[in-house]
Structures are given as C-alpha cells and as structure tokens.
C-alpha cells in the first residue's frame, strides 16, 4: 500500500497521533521525502500536545507576574506579548522551553546538546535568535515565520 500525505494544510497534532497509532511502515511527504527512520519522525517530542499544554500553563504563570517579579525591578510581561508567544508556540513542530526575562521579553529555547541549540528572545519590537548549529554560532534578528524552522532544523 502506498501512502502519500501532504504536510501542508494539515493539523499536525492529529497527524502525529495518526502515525503513532497506525502500523504504517513508511510514507512520503509531497513537500519533502523522508523515511520513517528519520530522527524527525521518530522523535516523541514532535507535536507533543503535553509539552504544548505545559508551555501554555507556563505562559499563564508569566501573565500573573507582577512588577519586580525577579527581585531586580523587572517590569510585568505585557499580555500582548504573551498572546504573541502563545500563537507562535501553537504552530511549532517542537515545543521549546519558555522563560521570562528581566527586560519584559520572553525567551524560548531548545537545547539538544552543547553544539546544537537555539535561544530566541521575543519582544514586541523584535525577535532575536542566538543559534548554535553543529558548533557554528549565529546571532541575528529574525521574523516570527522563521522560528519553527530554526527549532526544527536542530532535529534535521
């Protein structure tokens, strides 16, 4: 039986459950061919609903922070920014860790090992990424559209 599935315009969480519960031994994507042995497809973290829920809970905690929450005079994190981050993480293939910063921004980060990780600081004005990919460092301002690729590339 030949399965051909498009990853564009699909609800990824449903797709992930589908693959986990099915006995399909191989498939191909219309946008990018990958085998079932690919790290991406075997990674249980991928489209983890549990991690997404945990992150949303953490954002709720961040929403409740009052000024000087870190003991060093940090401002509250604006609800507008929290909503922005909520929207961003809902569309990510891999859930990052989320941390508030003392300058009113929110940092999302994913750490695979010392040579492969990414830290992305999201503020109302800018998204700034510090990435280490196979030991090569990059620092740059990025658009929100680039966040998913930046994190997913760590698993490629």
């Amino acid at each position: 039986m030949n399965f051909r599935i498009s990853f564009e315009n699909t609800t990824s969480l449903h797709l992930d459950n589908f693959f986990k519960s099915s006995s399909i031994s191989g498939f191909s994507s219309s946008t990018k061919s990958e085998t079932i042995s690919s790290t991406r497809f075997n990674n249980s973290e991928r489209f983890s609903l549990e991690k997404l829920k945990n992150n949303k809970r953490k954002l709720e905690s961040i929403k409740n922070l009052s000024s000087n929450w870190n003991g060093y005079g940090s401002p509250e994190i604006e609800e507008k920014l929290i909503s922005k981050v909520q929207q961003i993480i809902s569309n990510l293939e891999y859930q990052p860790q989320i941390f508030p910063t003392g300058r009113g921004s929110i940092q999302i980060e994913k750490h695979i090992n010392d040579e492969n990780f990414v830290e992305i600081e999201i503020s109302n004005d800018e998204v700034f990424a510090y990435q280490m990919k196979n030991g090569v460092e990059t620092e740059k301002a990025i658009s929100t559209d680039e966040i998913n690729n930046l994190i997913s590339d760590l698993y490629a």
Partner: protein
Amino acid sequence: MLSDINPIIDDNEYLYRGIIELNWDYENNPPSSATFKDSKGVSVDRDNHRPERECIDFIKSKKDFFAVCKVQTRKVIELQALVKYQPIQDNIYHSEIHDSQDRIQLRGSKPKKIRDESQICNR
C-alpha cells in the same frame, strides 16, 4: 551611605545573582540564560571578599530566591562584557554587568556564555 569599598572590582571576586524558579531550567543546565537578560544591565552583588555564606544570606535577605548563582568577574571580562560597581542606597555591593562600553543590555551569546560560566551556590 559612605563605604570604603574599592570601586575597582577585583578579577577574582565573585558576582552573585538570585534566580527565581520560573527561570530554573529543569531540562538542561540551570538557570536559563534569561536570568542574565535585564534592561538596565544585569544586577549582581560583588563579594568584596566576603565569605560565600554572607553573600548568599545578604542576597536572600532582599528576596527569598529559589537559587543563587555566582560567576567570577574574570570570566565575565573574558567574554568581553563589562562589570561596573554601582552601589545603591540599600546595597553597597550592587554592581552591574553590561554588554560593552556602548551597550548596556547583554545580547546574543553573552547571556548564555555567562550562564555557562556560573555556578549554583545555593538552592
């Protein structure tokens, strides 16, 4: 308050920073580098040759932090960041880590590299 603290921070002095639980990285090396991202420079307490226990007790007298970390001034300078002694009314040890002479906020790799050089000394 006048003090006789040397305004020049010795390279061997440790800089202490309190950490709240939301910035504790349970999956990797704690704390998250977000701990070192602050708009007015990263506030730290220089040790000024005090015993570690005294430094920790002092920092925790301001807030019951989840943990306290320390980083040596030399390590911060090696990362091309600046350490400035900036005493304030209720803290004669208060100092700040700045990105550079021209820029206050740490950015890019520096917060993580400082985090990597830091040690947890109280939890």
